[in-house]
């Protein structure tokens, strides 16, 4: 294909996505995930058409019931007439790079609903609970006209908090019986919660977990934003109506307060810095390959002939001098 043809193809795919065509959108997501050149240009065309969707993040420990909660939420929001997108992330194997993406299993009943678009993604080595291209996939779903996009992170431990710089509202799912671990994670993912769900609340210790969480919240500084805590047994669809209400209330908080604007700016800043990091790293590596090569520089650092700080500073200075 000539570059004109490529451009024409890209333009028509952008139009397809804006018209809500699933095949084209799904393939664009794939190209974005696979770093196909040109896919980002299509995303640039879509960007002015994004911003209409509300993004709801769902995170929590492995096995805490995230997918089941997402499944229940899809049903509620479909009943309310919303078009729902779901991005569900599972881990890639650090050894083989392969992955089994199984979040759809819990969402089967929505498989043929044309108002629901579910996309499974593998982390592909990305840390933080999301995949590198999660934000891009959200943008494509947004541009397609989805009203609500639910992002389900990988099962997280303490420090995978990227979802907060992606979602408008973050739901953290915990289960009873973690005991002291509640203490351990209070400085991690619990801090990013707008809503805390104690799932599997028919198990012993649910009330204790709620009490622990409430106490943790009480310890926060005055004026900290409201965090709602609720109990659920998602497998029986119990507590889901409360969760939907809590999401609505939080959404109203965002509308009313300067909080909403602050968060929008935070998300944009974090996205920009992310991209700058990626692009700067790419440029630096490209430059290295054109010069002495990464391996040679790494070797010199390992042999203590140059320190890594000076090496990085020199490289960056050369990069800046280029422009």
């Amino acid at each position, binding site marked *: 294909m000539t570059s004109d043809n490529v451009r024409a193809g890209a333009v028509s795919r952008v139009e397809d996505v804006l018209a809500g065509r699933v*095949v084209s959108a799904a393939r664009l997501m794939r190209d974005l995930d696979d770093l*196909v050149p040109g896919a980002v240009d299509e995303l640039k065309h879509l960007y002015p058409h994004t911003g209409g969707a509300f993004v709801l993040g769902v995170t929590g420990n492995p096995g805490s019931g995230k997918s089941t909660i997402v499944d229940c939420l899809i049903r509620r929001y479909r009943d309310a007439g919303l078009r729902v997108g779901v991005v569900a992330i599972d881990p890639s194997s650090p050894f*083989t790079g*392969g992955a089994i993406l*199984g979040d759809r299993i819990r969402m*089967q009943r929505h498989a*043929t609903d044309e108002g629901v678009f*579910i996309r499974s993604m593998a982390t592909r080595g990305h840390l933080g609970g999301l995949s590198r291209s999660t934000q891009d996939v959200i943008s494509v779903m947004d541009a397609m006209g989805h009203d609500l996009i639910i992002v389900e992170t990988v099962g997280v431990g303490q420090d995978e908090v990227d979802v907060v710089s992606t979602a408008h509202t973050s739901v953290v799912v915990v289960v009873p019986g973690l005991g002291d671990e509640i203490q351990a994670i209070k400085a991690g993912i619990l801090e990013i919660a707008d809503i805390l769900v104690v799932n599997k609340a028919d198990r012993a210790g649910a009330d204790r977990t709620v009490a622990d969480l409430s106490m943790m919240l009480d310890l926060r500084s005055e004026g900290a934003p409201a965090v709602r805590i609720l109990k659920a047994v998602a497998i029986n669809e119990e507590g889901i109506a409360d969760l939907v209400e809590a999401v609505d209330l939080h959404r109203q908080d965002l509308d009313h307060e300067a909080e909403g604007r602050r968060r929008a700016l935070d998300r944009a800043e974090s996205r920009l810095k992310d991209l700058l990091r990626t692009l700067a790293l790419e440029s630096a590596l490209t430059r290295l390959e054109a010069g002495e090569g990464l391996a040679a520089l790494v070797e010199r650092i390992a042999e203590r002939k140059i320190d890594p700080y000076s090496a990085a500073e020199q490289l960056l200075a050369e990069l800046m001098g280029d422009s």
Partner: protein
Amino acid sequence: MSTQRKIRILVAKPGLDGHDRGAKVVARALADAGYEVIYTGLHQTPDMIASAAVQEAVDLVGLSIMSGAHMTLFPAVQKALEKRGVKDLPLFGGGIVPEEDKAALLDGGVNAIFTPGTTTSEIVDWIEVNVRPKVEG
């Protein structure tokens, strides 16, 4: 940034039988071979499978069928994919399929049928030869 194509495969279990061990073994083996495997679980209708294949933009769909309904289910999945505007998506199957049916399915556009006794590395080899060139093409 350079392109990093990763082969994505949908493994689905259509129909009413509940024997999903084969599907799980294959899903695991494919993941171990470095592919991204979307596993959808039991009791999938052809429409559910086609819809998932489209949304997930997979390179290949694998069906595990133990119920004897393969002559109905494979064409139904092909039709459901075509209905969604997807043609030429490679399709492979595993399970209990008699030789004469296997020939008929391959004639009908199914790309490969793996019957009991096939090793998982044979499936991976087949993918490397028949699917990878298209994905990276």
